[in-house]
């Protein structure tokens, strides 16, 4: 009897573990106040490269499936494809290759969207809420397989010009030690 009860309890504990799921933050930023990341004040950094300030938001958004899928939705809502053609590039550079003009960190991509870049990338500082810029930046990283396949967006319902973000070669090993 006691054994049965403990077995049941154990089963319940295992089942309860399934209740834990990723949290969906639809209102991540406070209604008032600014949560923008800092801006580097120098172009000098040890060992070359460009200096970047890490941001608490980066870790929060980088591998969060919900934020990534929101980023994917916004990528088409805000017509990023107008210049970056589903990540393939056009008027703007391709986003699905492994060439990164300003680095492949989420902070760098966030800065590109927020502040714009020379040669055509406009600034969306006032036009896209900061958290949505983080979501877009996280999604842009997934276009070249820089996001673990467990979190990266799935395939579309309609035809896609490239494999789904979670099927990209890099996604399978991302975040795992070799």
């Amino acid at each position, binding site marked *: 009897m006691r054994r049965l009860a403990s077995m049941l309890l154990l089963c319940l504990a295992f089942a309860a573990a399934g209740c834990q799921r990723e949290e969906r933050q*639809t209102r991540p930023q406070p209604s008032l106040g600014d949560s923008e990341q800092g801006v580097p004040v120098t172009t000098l950094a040890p060992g070359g490269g460009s200096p970047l300030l890490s941001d608490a938001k980066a870790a929060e958004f980088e591998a969060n499936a919900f934020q990534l899928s929101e980023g994917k939705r916004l990528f088409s809502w805000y017509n990023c494809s107008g210049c970056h053609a589903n990540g393939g590039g056009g008027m703007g550079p391709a986003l699905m290759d492994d060439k990164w003009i300003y680095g492949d960190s989420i902070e760098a991509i966030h800065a590109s969207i927020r502040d714009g870049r020379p040669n055509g990338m406009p600034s969306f500082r006032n036009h896209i*809420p900061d*958290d949505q810029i983080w979501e877009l930046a996280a999604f842009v990283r997934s276009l070249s397989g820089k996001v673990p396949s467990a979190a990266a967006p799935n395939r579309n319902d309609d035809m896609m010009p490239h494999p789904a973000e979670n099927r990209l070669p890099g996604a399978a090993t991302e975040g795992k030690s070799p």
Partner: protein
Amino acid sequence: MRRGLGWIAALSGSILAGCNGVQSALDPKGPAADELANLIWLFTVLCAVIWVLVMAVLVTIMLRRRQRRIHPLHVDQASERTVSRVVISAVAATGIVLVALTLLSFFANRTLAGVGEDAVLTIRLTGQQWWWEVKYENAEPSKILTTANEIHIPAGEQVRLVLQSDDVIHSFWVPSLHGKLDLIPGVVNSLTLKADKPGVYRGQCAEFCGLQHAHMAMLVIAQPRADFDAWYADQLRDAAQPLTEEQSTGRDLFLDRPCVMCHRIQGTTAGGTTGPDLTHVASRRTLAAGTLQMSRGSLAAWIADPQSIKWGAKMPVMNLTGDELNAIVAYLENLK
């Protein structure tokens, strides 16, 4: 006993009170809904009568005193014959009732499909998470009208509704006017709506479509022809110009802030199409697909924090100061 009956009467009275009003299949206000209401009543009454009969027979048999104990192998020819006659006629009656009901529902369906051969108007309804985009089609491009969550139709005339979806499956259901029909991505469905009399009929998404499925309502407003034409002409106009300084500040803010990325206001540079068209937003009766009554307070509450009113809605929280919020609300409130 008497008190119990009183309670039952009071309870059924209050339940039946829900059967009429702006959203009820039992209070039909159009030919399609009439057809369906007749079916509902017929099925309910017929099935209730049959159920009562079956139960009565069952109870009678159970109460009947057991007759003398007969030998298990003894066969009484006369009673055997009665039993088989009863069983055969009961099976035949069941068959007849089922076939009759099937035929009735078939003909009702055919009538529904046949209604609307000569529609005066075609409206394209697109389901979105979690609101309805309403587009009045017209051969003349300048007379195409886009609005949201409110379908105005001329009363007494047939209107063709073309149903489609951009994201997931939704379902169009205005119980007082028509049965349900799904809006399916990649498929175009159509139905014909006709309201016999002017009035406001509430509709609701009837297919679970995500977090805010419950807050995805719409109003069908049937108006006399003249009123409808006036409304239509009014909606085709550009958005109202700001009248006060606060309103023009609000317009500038609207065009400078994230609002402009998703919403369209005809007559300004705001041209986003992923959110509801706001050209005449203040002329609508509700906000956020029937979630709030339209008022200055609702507008302010909705813009300040949509996520606390409709969690998961695609409208984000924006960083606006109190003054900015007030200015934007003042501008939108003027868009009648």
